């Protein structure tokens, strides 16, 4: 109907014109009949009818779709923006940055934290944990014996699986080099519980998952494509892992990346690990995953396994002090992304702040512009321009700004995400990060919201009854502008407050990053090259053979030109927790019931301490002769000495340790005390003990090389040394020690840098806002200032007056910002490293910085005003 009218409105208009004309004629006829002249009759008829044009316009508008109104608004908006291109560019750029950053962060948050896992019914998948006796670890990994009890007795689960990470040397055939691949050892329930099917072949069944079974392996899609050329006939054939033959039974699809994206193969857990190692109740070294029964709540399920665990603790706790206090559980998705939740949400909050500031800034600029157009607006309102029209125009304008900004922002976000994924390979589910329609819908929503926010504030302030006052207002006074100035000040204070919050967040995070970087690892980290290897069980079945290999390796490495020192350890500082053992000290009385002493376990060669400059505090290091079955000496760290031998000399005392995990603890004599090192840069050192690597008890070793020259140049010769000793033995993770440590600080450096960038951007925006408001204020008061100066006001007095005027909103904002920052700092508490959330220095620096930036941006307009020539000022209007 309306469309019909719209198409015929030209005819309709002509029709109405004719009809009205006929009416006028008839009316005039009547008047004429009363004796008036035709001319007078016609005039009266016109008066009686009123404006025919108005009637026609009304009908025209009634018959239109409102489309042209919008087009006209857009054209008007484009014209207004084009008249001040500087403003338009600035506003669009600010919006693009704000919207782009938001879109990028939202995409990451959505992909990583919110999107369900690609498994069947992922909301029923949970990870099971044990509550460690060490209360710092409420989510400790699981002992296989405890898992077995859960699996036997718990009724809340559809199924359970146990798995552990591992790595294998994949031997080369047909001239390929051997390589080291990350793998997972999984029990037969693993794949069915996740609900994934292989792309080709099959996964493990219960007959594969046994010690006596034939060795089998499932390959990842990536490994299959890369190493085996995507040849399907590999399924059913054998490959060499750690020197033993494994039958490939299946290929997983390309999207499947669990436990993580590095895993390239899966082997059967119970085939890989002897049964006697899978019964321990206190050897926490496996992950457990389970699927809840349909309709079963997590709480019910947790209660059930917790009771089982508590029961085990009661039953065996006396003999096995490390047995856990109870069970714990969390959703698989939570488990995967746990570490990234806070940082990502903090970043998203920061980008939201930036966008909010951008909107406020655009609103502020619009108000400033609206102020100079006050009379135009007032005249239009007086001529019958409706209030809605004026609001609509303003909204159209901000919509234009924000949609151009939003489109640019989308492009910006695309590149930002690309960059982010490249830099942050460590984020869980990083491979799933991509822009999808949800992200695009989000962008559109944010764009509209920004337009409304930025447009409505000035629009509401420009219309209304005040418009008449603008016409009455004498051109000399500035009284009418006061309400608008107040609004601008409020907006500015808000902007400043948000900026201060961002600055405080950035300051705290930067400070903790600095602390983190500068924390003492306890050893030299510069010019150190490391590479990892692992001696396969098949080729190096006994300790003597392993010890012989390590001896040979060290001999040849030290002979390499350019090597100033070479050493071996199973785990180096910064590489992680490594393993630990419960220790008992035979010279001490037995500990109270339920108490345990735990020490981190390391293996190294005697030269390791000198190579990494870990100081020998007392006693000596074990010697090359104390090897294999004569390896009965141990070196402890200062912290172990301090914690477990508080008032005595530990040298000559013994530690009884079950190093082999075969339930036969042996005594080791303490011969020396060395300095503490950190297993992770963000964690304080823990008690540690070193056994000789030539004991042959460790299959894994990290080669440590130091040089006066560029250590990277040693990578290739060192690899050749390993190859010359065993052509099937690959080395992996060739990197410098600083790279290894830096990798664990990437999170801190990334977050703090980004937030700092956001804070600086906000500071720039806020100072632009301050400058704008004061300039506007002074422009409004030019004549007043002129009069003051003419009447003898001191120029520095004027300067001070104006400066204070401009600074007031900044100070108000600062106060609110500091309060907000104090609250925000509590939220990022978990991201701070040895910095208190209410770090006084940070708050003081931020406040000082803000005040000086604010003063600077106010100084320019205030200075100019105080230099006013009173004669010129008075002549302005």
């Amino acid at each position, binding site marked *: *109907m309306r469309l019909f*009218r719209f198409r015929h409105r030209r005819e309709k208009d002509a*029709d*109405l014109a*004719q*009809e*009205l004309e*006929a*009416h006028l*004629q*008839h*009316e005039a*006829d*009547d008047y004429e009949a009363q004796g008036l002249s035709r001319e007078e009759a016609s005039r009266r008829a016109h008066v*009686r*009818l*009123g*404006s025919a044009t*108005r*009637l026609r316009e*009304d*009908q025209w*508008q*009634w018959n239109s779709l*409102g489309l042209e109104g919008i087009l006209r608004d857009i054209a008007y908006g484009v014209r207004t923006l084009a008249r001040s291109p500087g403003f338009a560019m600035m506003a669009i750029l600010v919006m693009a940055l704000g919207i782009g950053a938001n879109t990028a962060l939202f995409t990451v948050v959505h992909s990583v934290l919110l999107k369900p896992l690609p498994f069947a019914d992922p909301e029923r998948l949970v990870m099971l944990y044990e509550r460690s006796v060490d209360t710092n670890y409420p989510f400790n990994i699981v002992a296989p014996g405890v898992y077995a009890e859960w699996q036997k007795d718990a009724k809340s689960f559809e199924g359970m699986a146990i798995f552990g990470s591992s790595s294998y040397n994949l031997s080369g055939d047909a001239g390929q080099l051997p390589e080291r691949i990350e793998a997972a050892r999984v029990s037969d329930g693993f794949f069915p519980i996740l609900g994934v099917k292989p792309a080709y072949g099959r996964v493990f069944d219960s007959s594969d998952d046994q010690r006596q079974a034939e060795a089998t392996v499932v390959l990842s899609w990536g490994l299959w494509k890369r190493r085996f050329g995507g040849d399907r006939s590999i399924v059913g054939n054998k490959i060499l892992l750690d020197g033993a033959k494994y039958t490939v039974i299946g290929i997983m699809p390309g999207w499947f990346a669990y436990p993580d994206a590095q895993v390239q193969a899966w082997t059967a857990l119970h085939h890989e690990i002897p049964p006697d190692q899978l019964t321990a109740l206190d050897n926490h070294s496996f992950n457990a995953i389970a699927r809840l029964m349909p309709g079963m709540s997590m709480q019910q399920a947790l209660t059930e396994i917790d009771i089982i665990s508590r029961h085990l603790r009661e039953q065996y706790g006396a003999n096995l002090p490390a047995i856990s206090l109870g069970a714990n559980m969390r959703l698989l998705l939570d488990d995967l992304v746990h570490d990234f939740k806070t940082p990502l949400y903090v970043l998203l909050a920061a980008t939201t702040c930036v966008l909010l500031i951008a909107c406020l800034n655009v609103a502020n600029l619009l108000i400033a512009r609206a102020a100079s157009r006050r009379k135009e607006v007032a005249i239009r309102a007086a001529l019958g321009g409706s209030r809605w029209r004026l609001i609509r125009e303003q909204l159209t304008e901000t919509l234009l700004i924000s949609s151009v900004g939003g489109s640019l922002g989308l492009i910006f976000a695309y590149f930002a995400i690309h960059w982010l994924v490249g830099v942050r390979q460590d984020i869980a589910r990083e491979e799933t990060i991509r822009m999808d329609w949800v992200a695009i819908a989000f962008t559109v929503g944010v764009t509209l919201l920004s337009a409304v926010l930025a447009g409505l504030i000035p629009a509401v302030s420009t219309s209304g009854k005040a418009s008449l006052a603008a016409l009455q207002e004498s051109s000399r006074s500035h009284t009418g502008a006061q309400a608008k100035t107040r609004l601008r000040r409020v907006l500015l204070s808000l902007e400043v407050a948000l900026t201060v919050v961002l600055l405080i967040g950035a300051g705290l995070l930067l400070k903790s990053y600095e602390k983190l970087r500068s924390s003492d690892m306890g050893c030299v980290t510069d010019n150190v090259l490391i590479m990892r290897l692992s001696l396969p069980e098949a080729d190096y079945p006994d300790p003597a053979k392993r010890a012989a290999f390590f001896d040979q390796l060290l001999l040849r490495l030290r002979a390499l030109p350019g090597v100033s020192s070479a050493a071996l350890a199973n785990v180096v500082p910064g590489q992680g927790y490594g393993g630990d053992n419960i220790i008992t000290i035979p010279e001490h009385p037995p500990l109270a019931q339920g108490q345990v002493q735990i020490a981190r376990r390391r293996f190294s060669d005697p030269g390791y301490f000198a190579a990494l400059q870990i100081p020998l505090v007392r006693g000596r290091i074990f010697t090359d002769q104390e090897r294999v079955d004569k390896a009965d000496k141990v070196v402890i760290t200062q912290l172990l000495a301090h914690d477990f031998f508080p008032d005595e000399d530990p040298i000559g005392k013994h530690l009884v340790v079950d190093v082999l995990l075969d339930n036969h603890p042996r005594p080791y004599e303490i011969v020396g005390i060395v300095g503490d090192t950190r297993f992770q840069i963000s964690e304080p050192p823990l008690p540690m003990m070193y056994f000789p690597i030539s004991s042959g008890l460790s299959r894994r070793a990290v080669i440590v090389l130091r040089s006066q020259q560029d250590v990277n140049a040693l990578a290739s010769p060192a690899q050749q040394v390993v190859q010359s000793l065993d052509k099937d033995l690959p080395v992996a993770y060739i990197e410098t020690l600083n790279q290894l440590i830096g990798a664990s600080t990437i999170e801190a450096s990334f977050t703090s840098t980004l937030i700092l960038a956001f804070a600086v951007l906000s500071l720039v925006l806020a100072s632009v806002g301050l400058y704008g408001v004061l300039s506007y204020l002074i422009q409004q008061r030019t004549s007043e200032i002129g009069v003051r100066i003419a009447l003898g006001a001191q120029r520095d007095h004027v300067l001070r007056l104006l400066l204070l005027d401009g600074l007031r909103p900044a100070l108000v904002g600062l106060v609110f910002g500091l309060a907000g920052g104090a609250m925000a700092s509590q939220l990022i508490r978990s991201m701070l490293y040895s910095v208190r959330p209410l770090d006084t220095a940070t708050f003081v620096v931020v406040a000082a910085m803000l005040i000086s930036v604010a003063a600077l941006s106010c100084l320019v307009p205030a200075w100019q005003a105080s230099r006013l020539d009173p004669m010129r000022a008075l002549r302005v209007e």
Partner: protein
Amino acid sequence: MPGPRNQKNEMLQGTLDMLILRTLITGPAHGHTIAHVIEHTSDEVLQVEQGSLYPALHRLEDRGWVSAYWGVSENNRKAKFYKLTAAGRKQLVAETSRWRQIVGAIGRVLGEVEG
């Protein structure tokens, strides 16, 4: 989307529509006549605001209650004539009875005050 103006008084507007329809029951008429008839029959009590007459007529036409055609008036001028349609007749009946109900109701209320 705003409709034609002059909606200052909803009650009056509805009344005008009803009065126009009632006028047309005696046969087709053009705008000027309609206004004239309303004013005349009401003994000049009701003054038709001419600015709202035409929008009202077009609204009625749009709703299909009247149809329009161009003809020649009694003054021998070209004029647009409006004719009641069947739907318009039904509408008139409905509106008249609704009007009577309201008038009766108001009358009863006012009557009690007087009594």
